């Protein structure tokens, strides 16, 4: 015991001296690109869709580019891919009908990939779409990619055994969410689903029962990756995909490592976005975000050309950001993942209360609770700034740290008692505590009720849920208002459970607006969504917009060409290269 006491006292001394050695923190604002506006469009000029992609400044061919990530990618079957890591990797091995030309700074352009253009709305009613397949695209065995293989890829996405990927095309083609019973892929392997035809080898034609103006966006998802039917190995395709992109999988060790090497049949002149700089890409799974970040910061050996896939963990942010030597090796970018304080409109029916809530929130303080500007940047709109056509506005200007007086004024002396449902995770508990402080300062009485972390999403998706407020987030599959506003605020979609409209907001006039805008040509929609965004906030304040997630990445000194995808908020690999 005497020994124990000595060790203890010694330990305390070490800690105290470590502490006294540290210097004073004088602040200094980190630089984050917050005012970024997405200026996305759908490319109308076919030249935008033409290859090759412009060379990346300073990029060279050769070397091995390594990606470190804790969680393995479970498979690389394009039709089953929906995870961010998968969505960012599949473009290396598979091409899709359309794809995003993205500079990582909000300048987005949807271009044809397998298709020569991002599609043609045949009757200008968004019901019939045609894509003309590009000439010269080849599979890894040299066979040309035709409309047939693209059609087959879409058809196999109906297979219930291959579930897990996006379901837009499937649902739209058969016009029902139960697409796999509406059309049985396994019984019709040699035919195509209803509505999908290949008039000739170079034409793919979609016919929908209803207007589907977002089709050009939807076909950028890997559902449209081509596959010759004779190479379909079912679920086994996941660990031995058949490439149509610049790389092919040469080694697949489940849960440990994936190695991709150049596909010599890929022709740069046919590809508007991809490059083929490194000799190989290696995914190495296992290291925790902390370990991976520390490895690339240390910058030794193979880690010099490595990227730590996960965002810099909160525990390291201040250190990494404070190290000027690392600045050139970090990437800081807002993502399209938007976070709101969702108001349960079925309970909080008084507009003035919802408006007061909007005035009360101290977004600056909230960002501090989240870990600073390298984690989150404030937002005052329904749609994240990365949305095409987004316009910044603040319907309830309250300054960076909230306007409790204005909120009080709106409440006019009443003291609403609201229940804030919060997941019991450590971070969300702190966020809830912060929000409660803000709101009580403004005259609300807030009760925080905990919801088990893993159950929270299901619970708030139930229409009768008992809470008035909860935190919600939304990351759209493509940066168009159509994939955000109607999904989150169309009151006609409210069901008993599984609601994406967890604000339970329902307004006939707004619903009518959704219907109207959805039938407009995609190029005209973006401005109108931005206007509707502002109108919903001004007239109804159904939520309190809080912040968008910020991506903060670190990589080795020789890793180049990495940018954060403006669509998915994850590192894009199409420009990746190894510096000499």
């Amino acid at each position: 015991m005497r020994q124990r006491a000595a060790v203890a006292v010694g330990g305390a001394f070490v800690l105290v001296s470590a502490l006294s050695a540290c210097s004073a923190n004088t602040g200094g604002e980190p630089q984050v690109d917050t005012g970024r506006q997405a200026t996305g469009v759908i490319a109308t000029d076919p030249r935008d869709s033409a290859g090759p992609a412009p060379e990346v400044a300073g990029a060279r061919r050769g070397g091995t580019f390594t990606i470190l990530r804790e969680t393995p990618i479970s498979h690389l079957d394009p039709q089953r891919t929906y995870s961010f890591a998968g969505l960012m990797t599949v473009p290396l091995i598979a091409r899709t009908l359309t794809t995003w030309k993205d500079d990582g700074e909000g300048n987005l352009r949807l271009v044809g990939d397998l298709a020569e253009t991002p599609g043609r709305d045949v009757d200008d009613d968004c019901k019939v779409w045609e894509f003309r397949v590009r000439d010269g695209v080849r599979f890894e065995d040299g066979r040309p990619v035709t409309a047939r293989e693209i059609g087959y890829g879409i058809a196999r996405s109906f297979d219930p055994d291959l579930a897990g990927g996006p379901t837009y095309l499937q649902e739209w083609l058969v016009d029902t969410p139960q697409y796999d019973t509406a059309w049985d892929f396994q019984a019709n392997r040699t035919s195509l689903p209803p509505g999908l035809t290949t008039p000739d080898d170079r034409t793919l034609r979609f016919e929908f029962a209803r207007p589907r103006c977002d089709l050009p966006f939807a076909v950028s998802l890997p559902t449209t990756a081509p596959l010759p039917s004779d190479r379909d190995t079912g679920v086994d395709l996941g660990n031995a995909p058949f490439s149509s992109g610049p790389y092919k999988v040469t080694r697949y060790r489940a849960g440990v490592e994936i190695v991709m090497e150049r596909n010599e049949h890929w022709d740069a002149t046919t590809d508007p976005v991809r490059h083929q700089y490194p000799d190989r890409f290696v995914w190495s799974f296992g290291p925790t975000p902390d370990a991976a970040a520390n490895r690339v910061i240390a910058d030794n050996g193979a880690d010099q050309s490595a990227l730590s896939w996960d965002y810099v963990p909160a525990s390291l942010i201040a250190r990494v950001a404070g190290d000027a030597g690392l600045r050139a090796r970090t990437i800081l970018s807002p993502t399209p993942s938007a976070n709101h304080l969702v108001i349960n409109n079925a309970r909080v029916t008084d507009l003035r209360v919802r408006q007061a809530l909007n005035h009360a929130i101290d977004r600056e303080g909230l960002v501090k609770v989240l870990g600073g500007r390298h984690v989150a940047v404030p937002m005052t709109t329904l749609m994240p700034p990365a949305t095409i056509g987004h316009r910044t506005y603040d319907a309830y200007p309250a300054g960076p740290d909230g306007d409790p007086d204005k909120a009080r004024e709106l409440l006019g002396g009443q003291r609403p008692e609201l229940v804030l449902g919060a997941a019991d995770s450590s971070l969300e508990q702190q966020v809830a505590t912060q929000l409660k402080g803000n709101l009580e300062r403004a005259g609300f009485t807030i009760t925080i009720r905990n919801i088990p972390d893993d159950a929270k999403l299901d619970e708030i998706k139930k229409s009768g849920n008992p809470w008035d407020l909860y935190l919600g987030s939304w990351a759209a599959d493509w940066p168009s208002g159509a994939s955000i506003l109607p999904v989150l605020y169309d009151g006609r979609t409210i069901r008993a459970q599984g609601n994406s409209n967890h604000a339970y907001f329902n307004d006939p006039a707004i619903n009518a607006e959704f219907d109207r805008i959805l039938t407009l040509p995609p190029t005209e929609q973006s401005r109108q969504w931005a206007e509707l965004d502002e109108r919903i906030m001004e007239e109804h304040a159904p939520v309190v917009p809080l912040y968008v997630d910020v991506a903060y990445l670190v990589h080795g000194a020789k890793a180049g060409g990495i940018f954060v995808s403006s669509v998915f908020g994850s590192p894009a690999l199409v420009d990746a290269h190894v510096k000499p």
Partner: protein
Amino acid sequence: MSLSPAAGPVPAAIGSGGTAGPPRDRRGAGHSPGRLAWLRLRADRTALASGAALVLFLLVALAAPLIELTYGIGPRDQFQDRLDGFGLPLGRAGGVSGEHFFGLEPRLGRDIFIRLVYGLRTSLFVALAAAVLTSVIGVVLGTLAGYLGGWLDAVVTWITDLTLALPFLVVALVLPPMLTLRFYGQRDTVPAAFGVGVLIVIFAVFGWTGTARLIRGQVIALREREFVAAARASGAGPWHMLFRELLPNLRAPILVSFSLTVPQFVTGEAALSFIGVGLTEETPSFGRMIYQSLEYLQTDPAFVLFPGVVIFALVLAVNLFGDALRDALDPKSAG
């Protein structure tokens, strides 16, 4: 055991075989084993130091509202304007200043000192209350099982095994939300005391088995001792047996197991708070602070240091005092 010379002034048993031992202090009153333990404890510097520290901790915990009053800052007050853009405290050593003795928490910017004072209150209350409950349940069941034996012993042993087989984490995760729902529905405010109470109950429900087993073993050993037989042969009833003959001999093991469970519950509360069980973010608690602080080891070591040192000192003091107590009660084990 301690830095002090081995129990010097403590009288040893009278060794001579005569009719009387040498005359000693007033009225020839003897030293009861309890008093001897007390004397040994008083002669032990570690015991004194750790005991004094414990008293100090207790006083601080009891006086928390008074301290808040003089300090002028409450445990929920936020000072986010004194955080930098990363949510880290400005200034030296995690924002230590004349105003904030131990600096500020990152993120929410609450005062660490006053939160520690209240956290101490929570932790000590939970640990002490749970240890008392644990001891009561353990002693009652252990004594009954050990003394009465037979089917009662079998039943208690069965319940003990059942309790040991219960998955602590699962129950700790499932029970509080269920109870909260049962008592407060889905929207009522849940008072902090409820969470504290549930935590205490969970600790007690899972903690008593050790004490019960220890006491049961002790009682079985005591039951075979002839002084128990002597009392029985004189016609002593169960009340006399339990309270006059057995319990006085169980004081030492009860104290020992109590002193072992207290630090266990302090750290247990810390561990559970971390996984979101028990106390909410609003209740100042050591556990939450410690575990939330861990991710700041590199960026704000002061946030790790202050709560760490305090909980460390508390657990150390309890353990050292417990050890000293054990040694004092059973000098043979000293070493």
